[in-house]
């Protein structure tokens, strides 16, 4: 089993006529994802990566019965594209784009509270259910079907950990990138809830990083509500305060909240082992299974 996406998920790719949009649409299709359409204003009627392109998401959904979208649109237009997808409506919107202005995202977040759609991201690599579907830019070849769920604020760090797992023969139910921005649609707790409810997920890897207090909240959630064991990793132990470490959300505040130490000890207090290296995370998972 899996969460959120599988081989029935019917995907529209927003921005499919752009260079990255086309490349990743092809990659998704090659992986087996049921990509049914693209949506790009002014490009309706074309065919890209073997699927029809529509001028609006709504037209794509009406014509092709899509229920999810992947947003691969440049940052200046991405908030509008997410709005469009949320209002269509769809079940799941995966926003890959990094660099959406934070005030745009605050408005998207407000709208999100008014609709039933789930948003992943933005600034995330997407979601993959190995062997069934990937929505996003994750390199499919490193994943393998199995019984470990994975949720992470960082794309490439996810790949790193998955690579270690797969090398040991530990496969994944679903891997979710929730995104490195300060305001995101799906947070750790949302993802952990889904994994906890999934009977096939026997352990979960949670990769956090400095900034905010989402990991601390997740630790409390794990402590109170989860039977499925969790192994953790926190990036940014060496980050100085007040500096944005790449991700807009990865910043230790001047007053010292959002540090790696705070997150690691919260997770440890919840019984979650936190590895020092990605390899150690894989070690921890092997022990927990």
């Amino acid at each position, binding site marked *: 089993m899996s969460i959120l996406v599988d081989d029935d998920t019917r995907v529209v790719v927003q921005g499919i006529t752009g260079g*990255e949009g086309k490349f*990743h649409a092809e*990659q998704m299709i090659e992986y087996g994802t049921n990509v049914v359409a693209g949506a790009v204003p002014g490009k309706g009627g074309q065919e890209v990566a073997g699927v029809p392109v529509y001028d609006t998401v709504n037209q794509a959904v009406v014509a092709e019965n899509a229920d999810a979208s992947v947003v691969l649109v440049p*940052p*200046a237009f991405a908030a509008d594209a997410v709005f469009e997808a949320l209002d269509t409506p769809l079940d799941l919107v995966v926003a*890959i784009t*990094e*660099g*959406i*202005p*934070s*005030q*745009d*995202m*605050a*408005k998207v*977040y*407000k*709208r999100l509270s008014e609709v039933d759609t789930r948003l992943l991201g933005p600034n995330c*690599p997407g979601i993959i259910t190995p062997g069934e579907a990937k929505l*996003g*830019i*994750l*390199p499919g070849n*490193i994943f393998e079907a199995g019984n470990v769920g994975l949720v992470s604020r*960082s*794309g*490439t*760090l*996810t*790949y*790193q950990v998955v*690579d270690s797992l797969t090398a040991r023969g530990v496969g994944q139910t679903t891997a979710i990138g929730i995104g*490195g921005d*300060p*305001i995101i649609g799906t947070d750790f707790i949302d993802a952990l809830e889904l994994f906890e409810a999934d009977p096939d997920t026997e352990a979960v890897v949670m*990769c956090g*990083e*400095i900034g*905010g*207090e989402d990991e601390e909240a997740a630790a409390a959630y794990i402590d109170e509500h989860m039977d499925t064991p969790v192994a953790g990793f926190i*990036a*940014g*132990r*060496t*980050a*100085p305060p007040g*500096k*944005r*470490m*790449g*991700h*807009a*959300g*990865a910043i230790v505040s*001047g*007053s010292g909240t959002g540090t790696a130490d705070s997150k690691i000890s919260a997770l440890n207090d919840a019984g979650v082992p936190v590895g*020092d*290296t*990605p390899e150690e995370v894989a070690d921890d998972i092997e022990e927990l299974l």
Partner: protein
Amino acid sequence: MKLHEYQAKEVFADAGIPTPESALATSVDEAVEVADALDYPVAVKAQVHVGGRGKAGGIKLAENTAEAREAAESILGMDLKGYTVDRVLVEEAVDFTNELYVGVTMDRSEGAPVVMVSERGGVDIESVAEEAPEDIVREHVDPSFGLQAYQARNAVYDAGIEQDVAGDVAKIVQGVYDLWADSDATEVEINPVMVTSERDVVAADAVMKLDEDALFRQPAFADMEEDAAEDDLEAKANEYGFDYVRLDGNTGIIGNGAGLVMTTLDLVDYYGGQPANFLDIGGGAKADRVANALDMVFSDENVDSVVFNIFGGITRGDEVARGINSALEQFDEIPTPVVVRLAGTNAAEGREILNDDLVTVEETLEGAVQRAVEYADEEDIQ
């Protein structure tokens, strides 16, 4: 992107937020000239991105021309927590009775802006937040509506601001919020808002941080970016469009994806090295971007080795490899050893493309970091 006080005050004045009369000076003579054109007493204030300027001697009061000259002489050129002061703001000193605090920032846990007002301005507001959080009134704003007038009033009255100035302070709160929203700021802060002996209110300091992701639609602020930069490397990173943070170690780090780069830093530390920097080349990095990243890291003279760690999702290994090759081929002698580790999309192609004469190729992250730390140690010894 953080503006200097003098930049933020210009922006405030344009937005109708009252500020003291002031002007920028880059030399002692200019500072004296500016001071003489204002009403004494004046404050001479170092323009560097450093907290606690006052205590560190970066702000001095002057009652007359001689004192203004003395203040400018002592501040211009001084070293303030590692930064050399090359600009001072000369400003009319305000005769005040109270110091208040007004700020707007994004509350990430709520996904919404928050307005903050406190009667306890003029001190480190983060200590107030820790010791007596109830002394800072917080009013969350629905970003679709923007700050409503009543919310500004609620914040001001709930903070206990005296009634005779409450209306004017509420206007400043509204002005600060509107400025925050209109300029795609991440933070706007006035600490303190001074209540003068004539019961006027004025923004005596000004902090303004802008969302770098929104500069594309804020041309006026984009133009200020160069002057706002703290040092040459930061300016270079802005120019190249990199997420770059300088640290004080000797192992240079380049990678893709913030989490993985942070992890690479952490691993350098874990394996006994000292990270020299954070540099994320971002997703989908092309060859020229890779070359720029190498140029950035080599520009830091502390760097003794470089680890280049790419796990490809949106970034393709073949492009990175070509970028590394072509960047390093420009050098007669490569400044420091470069260790490269490629994984993910098109990684195998990339590894084939990489020129072993120019770089050391490692298969694992841990291996690459350990090798780079070794090289750095060796270079350091030499």
